[in-house]
């Protein structure tokens, strides 16, 4: 079996909701509510799911940008949450994150060169200043920016260019594991392709591992070894990529795939429209969280939480309807 680089077990992150003038906690947003998965060395785990279902939160919790509310994250067997600040710092260069919001994650008072080169300098990876500059230029060029961009400030860039700065910042450190939160959403398809190719090349060369969060199903399909589908803070389906796209089991996954737009103005679409109220993460429905919008909802769905079960060949799904259809 492959080496497990990351193991997430029953990860939870609840944000308190403050209310009133005196800011009392009136409830919790269960942004991530018991997510478990493993990532193996050299693979890409794609995560798709509804907006606000906790993908970014999962990513941040994994690299411990905030303390999680429950569960464990093991990176190469070490419990991330038990590390001291110093140990964590030492680990940082090995696991990097590309942030979803490119602009706000860039310090407005630093040039691209500083942003991208800083960590290299700070971790003492490259000490020579000229070399540092060379490395930074190389990295940003890999990411589709040009050398002349190095002394510019974030606000002087277009949205896509900013996103590439964020990517370059993460890649500069030569990490082993990258959480890429919507890394290509603001890029035009050509550059998107360039970046994806770059990521995949790096993966091949250095055995990089990715957690790839995206809404673009085609991109996810292309890059991922396996894909997880999240819904309202939980993982509802997890499967090898090809399998998932060919044979989606969970009704939410099916709806998702059917909604993907096709770059063909004449194409006919056969979209599954999800009806019903979108439930709130602070007060998720009992039983299967999807039952309020599920076309196949049954009585049992309202009562019991479906088990996240392997349907063979590592195709996991949590759905009573699937349970039933497969058994019959």
């Amino acid at each position, binding site marked *: 079996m492959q080496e497990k680089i990351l193991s997430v077990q029953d990860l939870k992150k609840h*944000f308190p*909701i403050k209310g009133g003038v005196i800011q009392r906690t009136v409830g919790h947003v269960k942004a991530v509510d018991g997510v478990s998965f493993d990532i193996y060395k050299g693979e890409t785990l794609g995560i*798709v*799911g*509804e*907006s*606000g279902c906790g993908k*970014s*939160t999962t990513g941040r919790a994994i690299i411990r940008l905030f303390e999680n509310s429950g569960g464990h994250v093991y990176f190469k067997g070490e419990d991330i949450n038990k590390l001291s600040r110093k140990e964590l710092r030492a680990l940082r260069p090995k696991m990097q994150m590309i942030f*979803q*919001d490119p*602009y*706000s994650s860039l310090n407005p008072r630093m040039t691209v060169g500083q942003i991208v080169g800083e960590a290299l300098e700070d971790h003492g990876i490259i000490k020579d200043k000229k070399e540092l500059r060379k490395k930074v230029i190389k990295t940003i*060029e890999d990411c*589709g920016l*040009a050398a*002349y961009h190095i*002394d*510019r400030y974030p606000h*002087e*860039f*277009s*949205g*896509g*260019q900013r*996103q590439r700065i964020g990517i370059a910042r993460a890649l500069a450190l030569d990490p082993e594991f990258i959480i890429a939160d*919507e890394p290509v*959403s*603001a*890029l*035009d*398809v*050509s*550059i*998107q*392709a360039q970046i*994806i*190719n770059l990521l995949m090349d790096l993966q091949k060369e250095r055995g990089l591992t990715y957690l790839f969060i995206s*809404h673009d199903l*085609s991109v996810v*399909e*292309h890059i991922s070894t396996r894909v997880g589908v999240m819904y309202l803070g939980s993982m509802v389906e997890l499967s090898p990529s090809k399998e998932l*796209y*060919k044979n989606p089991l969970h009704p939410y996954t099916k709806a*998702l795939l059917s*909604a*993907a*737009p*096709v*770059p*063909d*103005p*004449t*194409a006919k679409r056969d*979209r599954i429209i*999800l009806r019903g*109220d*979108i439930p*709130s993460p*602070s007060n998720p429905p009992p039983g299967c969280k999807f039952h309020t919008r599920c076309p196949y909802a049954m009585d049992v769905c309202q009562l019991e939480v479906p088990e996240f079960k392997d349907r063979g060949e590592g195709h996991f799904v949590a759905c009573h309807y699937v349970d039933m259809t497969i058994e019959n």
Partner: protein
Amino acid sequence: MRETLVEFNDVHTYFYTEAGTVKAVNGVSYKINKGQTVGIVGESGCGKSVTAMSLMRLIAEPQGQIVKGSIKFEDKDVTKLSDSEMMKIRGNDISMIFQEPMTSLNPVFTVGNQIMEAIMLHQKLDKKKAREKAIEMIKLVGIPRSEAIVDAYPHELSGGMRQRIMIAMALSCNPKLLIADEPTTALDVTIQAQILDLMRDIKEKTNTSIMLITHDLGVVAEMADYVIVMYAGKVIEEGSVFDIFKDPLHPYTKGLLKSKPVVNQEMDRLYSIPGQVPNPIGMKDSCYFNERCPHAMEICKTKIPQLKNEDGEHRVACFLYDQGVK
């Protein structure tokens, strides 16, 4: 033919920086008709957002300036309007969904507050009604627990939620023109579909024109009537959505279409246009794409190609289609 709502006429918007002048928009001309959805695609950094911002007159001065050209909005040249006249147009006649949802929301006001503000200003509703409307808009863009979310601050929302708040804000006032700068990048496809439906609805109901800036060719294909392709601050091809997708002319457009991965279609490596976007500072007179173009000719290095009518509405700026050159 339908009435023209907006007409860009040879717009140049430059940024004066320490390193030199960045010619972000360098002679852009096109029209948006009433009720039409115009998709704008192009290389990242080619000036799409700046063009839109020029129309809104929201370029960060004093570094950024519209140095040349005119932008007609319903007979008025917005480049010449006074600030107060411009104020009346913004938010009311033209509203805009910004590309950066996090930084574009004021961190110290609740999102509800920020939506209500525009409603109260332009629709003259009282606070209570405006709040109801805001909640309704939040619901419309598919955010759950809208009653609670109105009172949430931007930093408490996920990326997609923020983006939808921006959309709700822009849609709340039934503008004549909606500028949507990458409106759905942070949204999952089901919600994207929902938002696109919503935009279509509104467009149909109020005959709104939409200027849709996006990289998602799928979205363009689905939404746009007409497509403008930009490269390095210039329009290099324009045409109806069918023309562009079925019969792309410019080598850049072709490359773009080729780069897109498609679901259930296997390939080892994605195609990407080779080379780099030229440095927008100090560009020479040439076709800016020449260095990356597989069909580059001598003339491409010395002359700037003009947008020419190839057939009907479909126009392209490329010497390959230039009669004289051919």
